[in-house]
């Protein structure tokens, strides 16, 4: 299995249920080289501290699973009623 697919499965099966339990939602947008781009949806999209807390926690976990060289980019995608 390609690394991209493995990362997607890890996010979908391990991380997503935890995030959903807090009203959040995450989706892998892309894996290009060592850079994983993650969409932050639901409550995650309006979390003010996702950069400092969630992202660092997830990156730590991804590195343990898939190697130290990974980088993580998080992109917020607000639902329509949070876009002003």
């Amino acid at each position, binding site marked *: 299995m390609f690394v991209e697919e493995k990362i997607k499965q890890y996010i979908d099966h391990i991380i997503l249920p935890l*995030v*959903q339990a807090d009203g959040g*939602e995450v989706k892998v947008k892309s894996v290009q080289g060592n850079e994983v781009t993650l969409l932050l949806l*639901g409550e995650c999209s309006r979390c*003010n501290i996702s950069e400092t807390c*969630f992202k660092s*926690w997830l990156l730590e976990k991804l590195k343990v699973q898939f190697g130290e060289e990974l980088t993580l980019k998080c992109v917020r995608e607000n639902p329509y*009623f949070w876009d002003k």
Partner: protein
Amino acid sequence: MAHVKVARRSMSKEEWISLRAAWLSRRVEEQSVQIENWEIREGHQVSEARYEFYDEGYRALNEGDYMFTPDGTSFLRVDTKIPQEMENQQVYLKLETAAEMIVKINGKWAGGLDPNRDRVLVTHCAENNQKIRIEIEGYNRSKPDDERNIKTERLRGCRQVFTGASFIVVNKEIQAASYDVNILLETLHAESVQEDIKEFIKEELDKALNLINEEEYDKALYLEEILELRRYIKEKIFDNKTYKGNGKVALIAHSHLDIAYYWRRINTIHKNARTCLIQLRLMEQYPEFKYCHTQAFTYEMLEKYYPEIFEELKEKIKQGKFEVAGGMYVEPDCNIPAAESLVRQLLYGQHYYREKFGITVENCWLPDVFGNSWILPQILKKAGVKYFVSNKMSTWNDTNRFPHNHFIWKGIDGSEVYACVPPTHFISWNTPQQIVENWESLQDKNACGETMNMFGYGDGGSGATEEMIEYMNRLNDVPGLPAVRHIRGDEFLKQNLEGNDKLECWDGELYLEMHRGTFTTKGILKKLNRQLEFLLRDAELLCTVASLEGFKYPYEVIKAAWKKLMINQFHDILPGTHIAPVTVDALADYKQIEEAVSGQIKKAAEYLSWNGSMNRDHLVLVNTLGWQQTGLVFVKGEFTKETQAQGCLCQLGTHSGEKGLWIDIDNIPAVGVKTIVLSKKRSIREAVWFDWQQMKLETPYYKVCFNQDSSFTSLLYKPDNREIVSQAQVFNKLKIYKDYPGMYDAWDILENYKQRQDDLVLIKPLSLVSQGDVFVSFEVEFQLERSKWKQTIRFYRNSPRIDFENKVDWNETNRMAKVEFDLNVLTRQAKCDISAGHITRETHKNTTWQQARFEVCHHKWADLSETDFGVSILNDCKYGISFEKNSFGLTLLRSPVRPDINCDKGEHAFSYAILPHMGGLPEQAGVIEEAWKFNAPIRVFGAEDQHQMNWMELQQDNLHVQAVKLPEIAEHNCIIVRLSELKGKRGKGSFKFYKAVTKAVKVNLLEDEQPASDYTLENGVLEFEYKPFEILSFKLTI
């Protein structure tokens, strides 16, 4: 010259007061010593009492470290001692957190910490020089919507920074002064308090604060100044008699606790324990404090998982401080559950309270539910409940102001209960503004001179705080405010409503003019809830019959199944207003219920010498409905094309997505069984009963003209030679609306949805796909941007019912699907099933009251009729419907994105049917019976030989057999039979049970025997009087 608005840059007197109040608050903590050497173990909760840990053991936790993970539960601990300098004083643990923590000190439950409270008393669990072990279980969620503490806002998130913890000593006098000042400061901010009063308070408070010298702090001097400040405030402000307020407000401590919402049910175990513990500790601190807590389920969970707290709580119940409120098992949605479900909410709730606390709760406490069905007053009254409390209509209605706060609510059958709709939100914190606002909003001042104000944080529990109680104790002294008193909820209801002849009467449903989407959102939950309601009904009936033959009645299995179903009827679960994992939990529960209950049906059937195998010559058809079934019967199961059923017309097909055999059959007895003999030879019949060509169909009942998209341009009902489709030619028209109701989009539908539509793309035009002796069916397929929709339409040879089965792969976002029918029927009223009767609603939009009801809840059928003819729509799992003039639109699917971004995405299978009828009253035209049949297919079993049985001979077709079961408290050879009158008739009814009945007693819904003389038992026949829409229960001794 243009006016230029000048922004004030210098400090106002109010700001100066505010600043000094903040300085004062900082002196409250007299001593503080950091607690070192904390340890943490992180994990997450996977079931009620099980956790999965991320680490093998504990690790050190230092100030500045992250703690918690998404959906995390963390365990913190420290071994320490009370600092020497704090000995012999009241010492608190202080920890600021946005998480929800429950604290144990030396093995004793000490209290709770959360966004609203940051300290727990240590010294009632520990002594000087004694080693102290502090253990904390914390559950973290990033959306604490019930907190207003700015200090913890910065800590919000699915991870948190540990900001340290300390032992502190509080100076009680400074604390009291701080409350004095803060409540007055809040009065200055209160919009509803008169300006002259605020001016007076401002002047005097300013002078009072001038007594404090903050610049040169000397502890002894400072304390003297504090005493002087308090004396000044008392004399000048609190004792002032000039500025009197109006009104009277009763303060009821309460914490609303959603069983699941932005958290799972398993997390509520901890939330509930924390909430109860906090209130118990407040009762120790404030002996006069009383708190009311609802939902038998929460007490059950406390008893099971936190027995020590439960024992304390029991003691406080005996003392009258902890009030058990709300007779129901949970606070369910009160639109969608059927009558028997609501009965069980009360039956199991009240029986638990009786068993554990020896009380029957006289109120139904539903502050947050999304409207209340008209069937409720009767059910409440017959379950020992006199009072009904619900807040939503007063503050959430988007169109009309509900005209009462205290009133008599009259139900569909004429039963009356006292109702209280408090004028403001059920979450408040006793600020002066909230108290004045509550009184000013009260609409029934002449009838009732006191209003109810619930206080305490809620939704996720938490409840009252020390600050709320301290404010409460000062409110009567604050100029310009209504008089307040702190009482129990039941005291308020009894004192203000009981026997109050000035109360006006509201006769009708309590429709909430908001949250109209909850009739449709998360369709799978609605579908399974309905199926399981029917399954449980059948299981109880069959197990009862089998038990009379010696079968062991599965009390525990059935009770556990009901309880699981009832939990999932909670008002944020069944309505679909929750996060994704709550749906996963509900579906798992539904699967367990289905397996357990079906298993019992199978065992009961086997006991009665039937079995689940269809490979027999004899097929036992079980009709659990109270009506003899003649005509079209769907038998679920695997059959072959050659199957022939004893000369009856039959045809393979599906119903509601299930495979089976359609049989045109005579006389399956009501509440009974009939055996038919299957043969493999198929009689050859020509399907000459219909004609289909060029989008035109003729059957014995209809001449139909279709569009290719399956909508009808004409439907001629042959028995009356009547055209049913109006000139608008909208009939079975699927419409996809853009559905953007805003932040609360799982909850709401806005009326403007009609303004924008998407087109369904036709990918397979209507074509004939199946024909036979019983029916002819057609299929059509559509596509949306991300969805596929297949519809099967079925016309029957011997029935006027037209079925529409839908299979949808639905992947839309913010789209809503409706099917619309514009009828050639002139009427201003629609009738809608509400499960134990029906309600009539206007279809015009003359007033704002009708305009607001643009989407309403119904159950199995709805109808538009003229005097001698009408058209009904039946459904197998859909509850939302709209009416406008001569049309109805059944709401089929939604796709909101909050709180669950994937809401309703996936496969859906559902059916609806159209049933034209002669006669203008659907209740007299067989519509009710057909709607029940549409939802309750005949159960089928194999057998070796013939079985023919009629367990209950019920003479009246307006009486529905709602439940047949054994009594909750087992009595030898006794059964409970519950009937409901469905057609609005009054009269004498009678039934005979298949076994000799030696005694019959009327019981209420709690199964208590009732004194009544309106029934007789002679020769095994029970005769009784009944009223329109009455629910009657009897206990029969066999």
